[in-house]
């Protein structure tokens, strides 16, 4: 059976330049894999931020949302573990999207669902250019996000009922 792993995935080279280094030039450009990883890290940080804010606003949903949040934290850990920081660059640690938490629980869940869908789509866009093990990690995270959409859809149905 073909199976993927994140424990033995090769650590990706941070640099794309193959020619000999020129000490007078600036840092070489980031490779496509590292750029993709940086984007994926930012995406997970944004999701985690939204989950935490939503759980703080709607504590009754915290148990259900907490399980999904924990999985995003696992995604973030795994993505960060794939990166060796290139010279002059650090792994992103800033949340770039901070939407307001909606005024109703149903709308808050809908916002989470939209964020999950958007994140999953972004993961799939990274597949083509990524090295195989990294592509599998993105695909697995995208599948996880798809399961979260289903969970949130059920949660929304429950909150309406």
């Amino acid at each position, binding site marked *: 059976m073909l199976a993927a792993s*994140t424990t033995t995935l090769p650590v990706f080279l941070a640099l794309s330049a193959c020619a000999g280094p020129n000490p007078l030039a600036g840092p070489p450009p980031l490779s496509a894999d590292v750029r993709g990883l940086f984007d994926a890290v930012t995406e997970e940080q944004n999701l985690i931020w939204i989950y935490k804010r939503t759980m703080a606003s709607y504590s009754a949903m915290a148990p259900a949302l907490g399980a999904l949040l924990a999985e995003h934290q696992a995604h973030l850990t795994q993505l960060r573990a794939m990166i060796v920081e290139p010279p002059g660059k650090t792994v992103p640690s800033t949340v770039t999207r901070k939407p307001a938490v909606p005024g109703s629980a149903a709308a808050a869940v809908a916002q989470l669902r939209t964020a999950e869908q958007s994140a999953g789509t972004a993961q799939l866009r990274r597949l083509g250019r990524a090295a195989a093990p990294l592509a599998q990690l993105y695909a697995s995270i995208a599948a996880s996000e798809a399961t979260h959409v289903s969970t949130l859809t059920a949660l929304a149905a429950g909150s309406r009922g």
Partner: protein
Amino acid sequence: MTATPTPTSAPQTVRPIAALQAALAAEHAAVYGYGVAGALLTGSDQATALADWRSHEEARDTLEAMIVKLGATPVAASAAYTLPFAVTDARSARRLAAALEDGVTRAYLGIVAVSDTTLRTFGALAMQTPAKRAAAWRGSTVAFPGMTST
């Protein structure tokens, strides 16, 4: 579940036909397994199992067509399969359904390791449905669908 996954093969060496054949084998196993599970389920669970069984038949047919188009002979279903554990009641039948879906999810993730971008995307999209079904049967999600855990 957030355990760290482990490998069973080097994905860089995966060839398209081998990956598709592995997915087809997993679909064959799922079609067989749902026959076992469905017989022990009742009500809405049985209806869900029936719908899932049909979905796996359709996926099997899709994979067979893809493999034929690539000039290979699709792997045939086995006459019988060894179940991963004793399936004797509705509870174990639901566990079996989740295990079958996990196996299919894993196999589709194998397709993502090939270099062909179209096949990669196919594998990545195809694994989402069994991942969702596995979560539904299990009653919980996992952090890394398709990846094996240690």
